[in-house]
């Protein structure tokens, strides 16, 4: 069967009022101008023709785009399911009403912690109280709500309270997204990666609470792949089901892919989306199994995990076509395990944000020259 994209992540801007140190945005922003309202409209129409059924509006903070309701309307008119992925900073009621009118199907709000001081410290902004109010308003307007919390060493011990927060907000879904170590998170991984003990405890809590909340709230908890034996089937395989269009129009198989040097990504200003999906060098680079090195090539899991994550392979080994070191069969496995073992020695006190200052580099916004607004 031919690969076709089901989901599109539309990164509308890299600007954001938050500065989370695990942000999935690239550390090096691309040059260029943000796509205009009209250009995004064309992207949604082309995406729909190509098979996309679902679009996530993301960023940065998508609410920073004044034309967001128009973009929602354009995606809705193209027949796409629309999900707003937001910090909720700037999500006022009149705006939410405009988007509901425009056909917005659902809202996902990020929280950094259940406790305001830690949440604001991680976000690098005073945002927690605003988020709570916005989440309540979203519920009052009848949107389905997903709460997303990125888990890391500084907040994972509060998992029970984080679950209570989402339950109290009457979210249908709670995504407990263990930080993925790319971009800003990779730079901060020594401060962010939880210990093995923390992960084991949190995994148990998440499973137990998921059972308790059946029919009320779904909990999605994914073990960080630094602690697994087999790699994750990243994006369900390169160029198989997902595509990302970044703020300046580059089309990527995953939001982190721009970090891989040596792969050039085509742009919607120069090429139609179907050409980029079907024919571009970047989308075909790691598609299927032909590109795989040993041990992936002969592995019975090659159609299960697709060799893991290309970005992670690149970040850890310097070679994007290597087996993901999250796999115990990777010849580079030691690079990962050495790091993971160094984390276990961390004194528990170090994991408490109240007792030690955060040694983190916070995400910066693009400067004027880089991906400036349209």
């Amino acid at each position, binding site marked *: 069967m031919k690969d076709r994209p089901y989901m599109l992540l539309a990164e509308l801007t890299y600007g954001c009022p938050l500065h989370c140190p695990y942000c999935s945005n690239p550390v090096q922003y691309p040059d260029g101008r943000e796509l205009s309202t009209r250009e995004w409209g064309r992207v949604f129409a082309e995406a729909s023709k190509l098979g996309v059924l*679902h679009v996530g509006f993301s960023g940065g903070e998508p609410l920073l785009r004044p034309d967001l309701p128009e973009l929602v309307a354009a995606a809705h008119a193209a027949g796409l399911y629309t*999900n707003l992925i937001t910090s909720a900073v700037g999500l006022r009621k009149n705006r939410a009403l405009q988007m509901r009118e425009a056909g917005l199907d*659902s809202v*996902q709000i990020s929280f950094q912690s259940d406790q305001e001081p830690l949440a604001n410290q991680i976000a690098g902004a005073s945002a927690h109280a605003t988020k709570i109010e916005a989440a309540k308003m979203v519920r009052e307007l009848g949107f*389905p709500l997903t709460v997303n919390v990125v888990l890391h060493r500084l907040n994972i011990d509060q998992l029970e309270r984080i679950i209570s927060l989402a339950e109290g907000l009457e979210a249908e879904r709670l995504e407990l997204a263990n930080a993925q170590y790319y971009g800003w998170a990779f730079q901060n991984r020594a401060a962010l990666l939880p210990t093995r003990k923390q992960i084991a405890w949190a995994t148990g809590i998440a499973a137990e609470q998921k059972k308790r909340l059946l029919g009320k709230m779904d909990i999605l908890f994914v073990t960080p792949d630094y602690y697994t034996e087999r790699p994750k089937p990243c994006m369900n395989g390169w160029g198989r089901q997902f595509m990302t269009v970044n703020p300046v129009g580059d089309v990527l198989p995953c939001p982190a892919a721009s970090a891989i040097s040596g792969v050039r990504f085509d742009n919607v200003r120069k090429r139609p989306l179907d050409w980029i999906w079907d024919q571009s060098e970047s989308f075909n680079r790691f598609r299927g199994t032909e590109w795989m090195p040993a041990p992936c090539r002969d592995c019975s899991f090659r159609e299960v995990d697709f060799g893991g994550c290309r970005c992670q392979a690149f970040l850890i080994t310097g070679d994007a076509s290597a087996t993901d070191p999250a796999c115990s069969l990777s010849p580079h496995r030691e690079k990962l395990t050495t790091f993971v073992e160094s984390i276990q020695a961390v004194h528990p006190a170090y994991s408490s944000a109240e007792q030690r200052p955060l040694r983190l580099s916070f995400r910066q916004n693009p400067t004027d020259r880089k991906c400036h607004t349209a």
Partner: protein
Amino acid sequence: MQMDEQSRPELARGVRLRNDPLTGEPVLLFPEGVLPVDETMYAILRRCNGDLTLTSIIRELAEEYDIDPQTVRQDVCECLTQLREQMLIALFK
């Protein structure tokens, strides 16, 4: 809430049952994803309208497909439990 004979299942908030324009096959669209819907699931989902009770859904399916109601019950419960876990189906009483 436990699922029982009098439960009236319906698609949960923000969940849409659509046809995939590319294949004509039904799919469920929901906040965080897309789920392909097979023939059995489609027959069940079409009846999850918040009006029909579990008992009525099972009776209708058993009649339409001429299958023993016990077998239908098992299929329906299995399917709805899986969908409830993912918050794709909500129950009303």
